[in-house]
């Protein structure tokens, strides 16, 4: 089975995240880059499917040069090879454009299954899985907390606000995962060593057949108008419990008409 797993490098949530004043895009140099957390679950699921059904796992990343670190980590977890789409023309792409660019690369790699996270920790749009399924004309098996494959049929449990839906489809398909799905493995020392020798193909937009007029900040379908630091919350009152802490909170809540 040809499994492609999408991996995005995002700024570490522990370090300060900023937008650049020139063009209102994410300042990716200001923070340490890490694999988007849910993408580790996507990699893990892809590896488990490969282990059960055979095949190959390819990591696909669109992002600056620096994203190589994240690609190596994905390979160290056990993916077989990687494709890195990197081109200055892609900077500032919005979700609509990102899904287009990734679709073009998937046209080159081919796929039976595309596995991705259901949301990134930086932009948090949660749009990619649906956009890709629509573009590729394949089943959207998103927000999955359980995946079962039997031949070419695939069943997932789709997490919903009220519980879950059981969804059936036929491969090829796009699957996005939520964190309940598995527990990602840590790369072993052997895995880390092996990752150094695994092939990483670097593509520019021309290599991938991506139309420069359809990507990048200047052609985006959304634009940031302005941004500012949120005003700090006014300092609240903090008291130490002297046996009446609960009563004091009740008084505060009463003053705000909550009780």
């Amino acid at each position, binding site marked *: 089975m040809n499994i492609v797993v999408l991996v995005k490098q995002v700024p570490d*949530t522990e370090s300060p995240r900023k937008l650049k004043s020139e063009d209102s895009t994410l300042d990716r140099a200001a923070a340490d880059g890490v694999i988007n957390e849910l993408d580790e679950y996507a990699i893990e699921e892809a590896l488990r499917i490969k282990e059960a059904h055979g095949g190959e796992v390819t990591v696909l990343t669109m992002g600056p040069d620096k994203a190589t670190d994240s690609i190596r980590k994905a390979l160290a977890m056990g993916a077989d090879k990687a494709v890195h789409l990197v081109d200055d023309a892609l900077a500032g792409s919005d979700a609509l454009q990102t899904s287009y660019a990734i679709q073009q690369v998937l046209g080159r790699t081919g796929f039976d299954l595309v596995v991705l996270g259901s949301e990134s920790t930086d932009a948090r749009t949660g749009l990619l899985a*649906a956009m890709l399924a629509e573009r590729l004309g394949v089943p959207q098996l998103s927000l999955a907390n359980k995946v079962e494959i039997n031949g070419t049929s695939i069943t997932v449990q789709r997490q919903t606000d009220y519980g879950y839906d059981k969804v059936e489809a*036929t491969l090829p398909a796009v699957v996005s995962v939520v964190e309940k799905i598995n527990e990602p493995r840590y790369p072993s020392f052997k895995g880390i060593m092996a990752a150094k020798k695994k092939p990483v193909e670097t593509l520019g937009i021309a290599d991938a057949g991506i139309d420069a007029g359809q990507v990048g900040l200047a052609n985006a379908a959304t*634009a940031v108008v302005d941004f500012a630091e949120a005003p700090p919350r006014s300092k*609240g009152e903090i*008291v130490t419990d002297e046996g009446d802490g609960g009563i004091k909170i009740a008084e505060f809540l009463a003053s705000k008409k909550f009780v």
Partner: protein
Amino acid sequence: MAEILVLVDHVDGEVKKVTLELLTLARRLGEPAAVWVGPGYEGAKDKLAEYGAAKVYVAADEELTSYVVAPKAALLAQLVQSASPGAVLVSATGEGKEVAGRLAVKTGSGVLTDVVDVAEGFVGEHSIFGGAIIAHAKVTKGTPIIAVRPNAIAPEAAPAAPAEEQVSVTLSDADKAAKIVERVVQEKGERPDLTEAAIVVSGGRGVGSAENFKIIEDLADALGGAVGASRAATDAGWYPHQFQVGQTGKTVSPQLYIAVGISGAIQHRAGMQTSKTIVAINKDPEAPIFELVDYGVVGDLFQVAPQLTEEIKKRK
């Protein structure tokens, strides 16, 4: 005035509160036109009228809710064609955002996700990086598609007598590629939905065990609120995962958020920082949650929380 399409969020005919918020917002931007998909409209009709829908497009065919997301996007794309709306509003839930994503591809439009408000000219306000930055953004291509965060807009009634129009859409094979074969509604009990609740009481690692979560539930019930949990608590298996608040859980924006035994890690804050009033109980005076609070008590939650619950009951 241009129509503003509002995709109605409902579970088996029960309209979610976020829809009333979207209708309230749509009234400020143009003429609200609700879009109903699936069975159950008759029971929901009065609610949509009460919150000012000038029109309701009713697509009652059960087939439209038998497949994952795609049919809703197909229907909306058809309405975007025929009605040329000023914008399309959906709720910024997992499914709402996915409808937005497919619709964006179908119509070549931009999407703004998780906005907390929309101003004239369809400029969306986003609260990003865990509430640290307020950004404004707009759609520059196609019809603005805007996913609005639940609980961000105060719903206001404005009774209207909506015109009803029955609509249908022919689904393509691709729209029917992911079939829903079973729908499992998990017992949610008497408490309000976490993302919709006006009051949320959350417990963290300090709560210590699944049994002790009863303290959190009792407090939530005394206030008529929902129960949430930090990731430390859901990872430990003390409370089900769907109640996790934070970056990889639910984003909540209630009138009142009470954090009990939660330190206030940035990933937790990402999911609750826009709450209107924040209260914390924590034994560590240095806990970062205290930077956010309107009222905080440094103390043992096993003393303070039950006392608070008793006091609230007394005052009722």
